[in-house]
């Protein structure tokens, strides 16, 4: 067997890791910090509906040569968005259903429904880079007080983290937390400038 030293070391470490992992599955529970954004609050009273798929989002993928990956980001994602949206509007309440009665809508200017539409990640064994990277595509759907859809906006959050063979779960958790954070930053800074949101705010004032 003739090979480059780094390849030899990586192969040896990978073999040890794979032997230690039960069923070659890497389980990742995403954890991270939840900062509050410093942005101008949008002057509106909104309800937010977090669908079950958003609250409990879990991603599983089998990668040839890199094993099975089971990534649970639901709790961190929910905590992050709850804090984020609370800081973005003057009044926010969480609702169990996206469709509300006319009476309930009287005290609101609109409803937001965030969803995760796509999740993807790369591990160093596949990318050839020394980073674990994650991308999350979110879709934010907005409804006015009449229950009509006023706009939808897709944003993509990216995250990267260095990681060794023995810390793959930690590195992927960090990369995912950074992707959530990046998506949150895009939302916090850009939502008020979305044409649909501006129309919705202007129409509300009329």
């Amino acid at each position, binding site marked *: 067997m003739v*090979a480059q030293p*780094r390849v*030899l070391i990586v192969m040896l470490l990978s073999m040890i890791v794979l032997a230690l992992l039960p069923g070659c599955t890497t389980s990742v529970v995403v954890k991270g910090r939840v900062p509050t954004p*410093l*942005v101008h609050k949008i002057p509106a009273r909104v309800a937010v509906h977090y669908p079950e798929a958003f609250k409990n989002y879990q991603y599983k993928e089998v990668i040839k040569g890199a094993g099975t990956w089971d990534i649970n980001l639901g709790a961190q994602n929910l905590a992050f968005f709850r804090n984020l949206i609370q800081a973005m509007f003057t009044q926010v309440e969480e609702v169990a259903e996206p469709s509300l009665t006319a009476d309930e809508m009287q005290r609101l200017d609109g409803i937001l429904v965030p969803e995760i539409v796509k999740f993807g990640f790369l591990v160093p064994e596949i990318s050839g880079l020394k*980073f674990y*990277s994650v991308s999350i595509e979110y879709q934010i759907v907005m409804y006015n007080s009449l229950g009509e859809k006023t706009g939808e906006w897709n944003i993509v959050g990216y995250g*990267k983290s260095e990681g060794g063979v023995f810390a793959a779960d930690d590195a992927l958790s960090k990369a995912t937390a950074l992707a959530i954070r990046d998506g949150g930053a895009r939302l916090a800074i850009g939502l008020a400038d979305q044409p649909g949101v501006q129309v919705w705010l202007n129409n509300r004032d009329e």
Partner: protein
Amino acid sequence: MVQNISNARCSLMLAMLLWTSLFTLLSGCVSSRIEQTRHADTGISPDEVAVLLGRASYNDKQTEASFTDCVADVMSQEPNPIRLITQAEFQDRMYPWFEPRTAPSSVAELGQIFAQPGVKERIEEAKIRYLAWIDGDTITIKSGGSMSCTISTFGAGCLGVSYWEEDASYEASIWDIQTMTETGQISAEATGTSYLAGLVIPIPILARPGNVTCKQLANQIKDFIIGDQ
């Protein structure tokens, strides 16, 4: 017969010793260079703090968090330690304005961020005087040689030599928050070759250009910020 075996063992041990000595001598082989450009006078009072931030991008390169951590460690050490706020703490306080895709790329952009609610107040509250942006990475520029390892019922062993050359190249750009100016840049570069020698057991002889660059850059940033105080 016994004498022959003894001589053979002696020769093997001598050869191993020579190989080991040779590679130990080569292990310190890192060449480095540091340059500084100053645009304005600097200085820092004991109650003021600095922040080190690694530049991040979403291509295949990014300033490693381990590198900025290393620079922060060295800058916090005696003599003349500088008080630092960690990158994580600063980014949380300033969220979402210092994230990889929203961070200011120039002092002029920093002025725009200061117009956001609460940003200036938080900077002043934490007594942040300097922001030092670190940009760069460590890459493998050359590798070669070969080593073979064998495992059999009689034992295991490796034979051969492999090497890889790494280049660590970083630049720090230092912004003064008080005067809202870029006070200067410091660049540090180091190149080193690491070896893995297979003499029955693999013997790694590692050059660490990243570590050398970290220490040089950190000490230079420290001296730069302290200035002629």
